[in-house]
């Protein structure tokens, strides 16, 4: 007894298992796009969104490109972004983090948001990712060591987290802390800097729309060596201000300590704005080498983001380096 007809479909038309298993990432793409359009994310089903974000390095993560933050400069190849890192917890050589962060556990992960705010809360990565729609933003990254990259980040403005936290009148600065576990980061002991890594911004800097909380690069979840699962990106400051693998964000009254400033106060200031006119005591900051180029190019004031200048009007940039 034959019921019905054999399906008119060849095996080659069956969705490959890989794509089938990746349908979550497809969901993310669609949802993130939707989220960007809905500009609130309230329309989204929470379940599928968090499921979509239970992703590890290498999995897809998409954001709608924010055309306010693009550049016609050539993007740095993803391989270079993944192979050339300063992440001293995983070794001080540029190619160390790619090797030694391979098995870094980024899940489960919590981010404690506290201090002088109305709504202290400990988020997990999925929750904090829901605070705003993901965007792709192409930023220049200028390292204090005078090299630079162009990176297509995925994330949303840090101010989304700050608005949710509702800082009180005492909150003048935001302090950040990187996860530190000597068991997972044995090379941290010989890094020559005090760990856990800490960084900070003035509240108005942290509120600036350019300051990005990033979860991905090139449409993928952040590689571990680039600061998974979430990091800060402050494109007008030297790269070390863009703290990686954040576990704590606190709102404080006084200027918080910052790792490189503790290590060498004369060399690395709290502000560390990219400034071709203020040299590092040991080397010039007038030029930089773009990764992929042989010759150096001029470094731009605020790394080419003049819109931040008003935050520093009247400030002596030589004194507040």
């Amino acid at each position, binding site marked *: 007894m034959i019921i019905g007809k054999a399906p008119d479909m060849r095996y080659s038309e069956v969705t490959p298992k890989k794509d089938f298993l990746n349908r979550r990432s497809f969901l993310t793409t669609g949802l993130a796009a939707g989220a960007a359009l809905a500009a609130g994310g309230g329309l989204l089903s929470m379940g599928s969104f968090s499921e979509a974000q239970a992703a590890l390095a290498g999995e897809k993560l998409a954001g709608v490109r924010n055309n306010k933050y693009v550049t016609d400069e050539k993007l740095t190849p993803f*391989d270079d972004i993944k192979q*050339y890192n300063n992440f001293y917890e995983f070794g001080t050589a540029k190619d160390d983090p790619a090797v030694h962060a391979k098995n870094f556990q980024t899940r489960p992960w919590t981010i404690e948001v506290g201090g002088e705010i109305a709504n202290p809360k400990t988020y997990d990565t999925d929750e904090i990712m829901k605070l705003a729609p993901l965007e792709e933003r192409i930023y220049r990254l200028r390292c204090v060591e005078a090299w630079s990259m162009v990176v297509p980040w995925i994330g949303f403005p840090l101010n989304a987290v700050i608005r949710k936290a509702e800082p009180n009148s005492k909150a003048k600065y935001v302090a950040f802390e990187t996860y530190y576990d000597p068991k997972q980061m044995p090379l941290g002991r010989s890094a*020559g800097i005090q760990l856990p890594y800490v960084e900070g911004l003035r509240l108005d800097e942290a509120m600036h729309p350019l300051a990005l909380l990033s979860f991905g690069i090139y449409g993928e979840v952040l590689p571990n060596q680039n600061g998974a699962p979430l990091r800060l990106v402050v494109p007008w400051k030297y790269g070390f201000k863009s703290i990686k693998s954040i576990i704590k964000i606190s709102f404080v009254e006084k200027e918080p300590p910052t790792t490189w400033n503790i290590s060498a106060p004369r060399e690395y200031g709290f502000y560390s704005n990219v400034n071709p006119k203020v040299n590092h005591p040991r080397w010039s900051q007038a030029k930089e*080498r773009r990764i*992929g180029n*042989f010759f*150096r190019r001029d470094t731009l004031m605020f790394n080419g983001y003049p819109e931040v200048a008003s935050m520093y009007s009247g400030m002596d940039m030589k004194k507040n380096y």
Partner: protein
Amino acid sequence: MFRTILYSRWAKATVFLACLIPGLLLVRRLITGDLGPNPVETLTHGTGDWTIYFILITLSITPLRKILKQPALIRFRKMLGLFAFCYGVLHFSVYMVFDHFFDFSAIVADVIERPYITAGFLGFVLMIPLAITSTKGMIRRLGGKRWQRLHRLIYASATAGVVHYYWLVKSDITVPLRLAAILAALLLIRAGFWMRERQNNVAARPTDKRSEAAAT
């Protein structure tokens, strides 16, 4: 046995080829595009590292030949020293071409303003007279004693090289400290030899003791 190898015709050629290897490996990586995301940095560090390594290897010849009682090792010293200089030339060339593209005023400003470059430049410049006077003819013209005194500049050059390295790293001073320790050991061994020689001389010629005491 060991001595026969050291004196063999092929020993020098073998060492010569071995000294070329680090440079050739860099050239191969350059050709195959395998110098990593920052090729200029890789070339700068690669040539700089080998400059210091060769200086230290050159400085280890005298202690080794005395401790191992292998005077034949001296045959390789000049070549090793010249390789140190060659890698130094490459190191400086990469800096001159890719960091400043022959902008000599910028290089001069760099040398004056940046202590780590001052140290590196000093280490390099101090090697120049040593390379020039490395020939047999020059040794004869200068006379052994004067030549030897001139070539003690290598101690200053090596120190400048290690300081150059120490001053340029951001926080991980492990490698420069390791190099500094090796250099210190090589210099201390020399101080030991020198003290013993002096004692032996004093013991051999007791009359000198008085004149020396009078001099000091």
